[in-house]
């Protein structure tokens, strides 16, 4: 056990992250990389990029609040150290996605009103379920909610966005590459730490599974909202960016060609991928995935 926990060191994080894949980056991308003109000049694309990035900022603000809040209730110093590094990771994510909003033309004074305007109410509820556990100092439920449910969702969302951006927006693809690397550590901590702890607290399982069910409901509702009424935006996006025909595999993600997929197909592949991951990860640590009722788009 001591070897397992000793891996969570600040030194390892320094050598892996700031001295590794983030070396020589600015806000997560190579210096000089900019948003493609199409995202700045076309109102439909720009608003769509702002809407998507808003959800990323709100999700990362939740992760920042949760990871920092869990430090004080962690039962050992190795976990506190890891959560301290995760807190900085999440703060960086908030910063780089907020910077993307600025790059898309949002003024500093308009940031909060923009987040309010475009933020998905279901994503806010998703965050509230998690932060309620964190506020109570519930380490086991908090880590499951944060590092398995929230980070598991983020892992798949980032991978999908990266597949879409690979050819149309290399700046965003590079930003996402760094966040995906961060997520590997976060989901790893969730599984390994809770996998070891949950056997000590089997009586907590029903309550934690209920939290997972509630968070999953709000996550699926967020996906349903995000992909509803998207056909025209997607069509305009593909017209401007010159896609709309299969790109030969560059944007194939979990079997779906995202360069030609309809919004319903994109929502389905994202939801199916995240839920499959939840079931597998929760099963490995001894928790049973709970299916929520099917949400409807707002």
């Amino acid at each position, binding site marked *: 056990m001591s070897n397992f926990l000793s891996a969570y060191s600040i030194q390892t994080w320094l050598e892996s992250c700031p001295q590794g894949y983030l070396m020589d980056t600015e806000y997560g991308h190579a210096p000089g990389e900019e948003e493609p003109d199409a995202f700045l000049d076309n109102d439909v694309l720009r608003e769509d990029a702002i809407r998507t990035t808003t959800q990323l900022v709100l999700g990362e603000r939740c992760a920042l609040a949760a990871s920092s809040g869990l430090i004080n209730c962690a039962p050992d110093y190795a976990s506190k150290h890891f959560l301290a590094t995760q807190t900085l990771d999440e703060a960086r994510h908030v910063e780089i996605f907020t910077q993307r909003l600025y790059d898309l033309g949002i003024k500093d004074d308009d940031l909060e009103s923009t987040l309010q305007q475009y933020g998905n109410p279901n994503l806010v509820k998703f965050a509230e379920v998690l932060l309620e556990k964190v506020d109570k100092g519930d380490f086991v439920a908090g880590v499951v909610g944060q590092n398995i449910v929230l980070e598991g969702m983020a892992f798949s969302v980032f991978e999908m966005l990266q597949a879409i951006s690979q050819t149309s927006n290399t700046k965003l693809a590079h930003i996402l590459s760094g966040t995906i*690397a961060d997520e*590997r550590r976060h989901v790893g901590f969730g599984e390994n730490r809770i996998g070891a702890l949950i056997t000590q607290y089997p009586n907590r399982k029903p309550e934690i599974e209920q939290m997972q069910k509630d968070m999953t409901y709000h996550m699926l509702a967020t996906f349903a909202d995000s992909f509803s009424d998207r056909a025209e935006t997607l069509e305009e996006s593909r017209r401007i960016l010159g896609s709309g025909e299969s790109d030969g595999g560059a944007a194939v993600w979990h079997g779906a060609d995202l360069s030609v997929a309809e919004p319903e197909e994109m929502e389905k592949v994202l939801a199916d991928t995240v839920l499959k991951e939840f079931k597998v990860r929760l099963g490995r640590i001894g928790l049973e995935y709970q299916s929520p009722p099917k949400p409807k788009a707002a």
Partner: protein
Amino acid sequence: MATVNDPLQKESTDEQAGQEKPHQRYVLEETGFNEVPKKYRKFYRRFGGEGDSLAPNEVQCPVCMVIVRSSRNLRQGDRVYCMPCFSRLVVVMVNDRLEAHPVY
């Protein structure tokens, strides 16, 4: 034994592996993987998606999906470590393929 820093941390016995063939050695080169400290980077690579076939010295971490590489071929019962996500793994044979399962 495997080389220093190798993710193969504990080799299985011939009995556990179900074979008596000696281990084959592999020379590892950098793969561009930069998510761990420098001296460990050649032991990992990113998964290339469907169609990416694994060599006998490789196994995929089920937690973070990175490919873990050893300087020796892997066998059932070997214990390996995935540094990108801090997972301790045991190599198992499933449907004639080597898989890694986390150990908590």
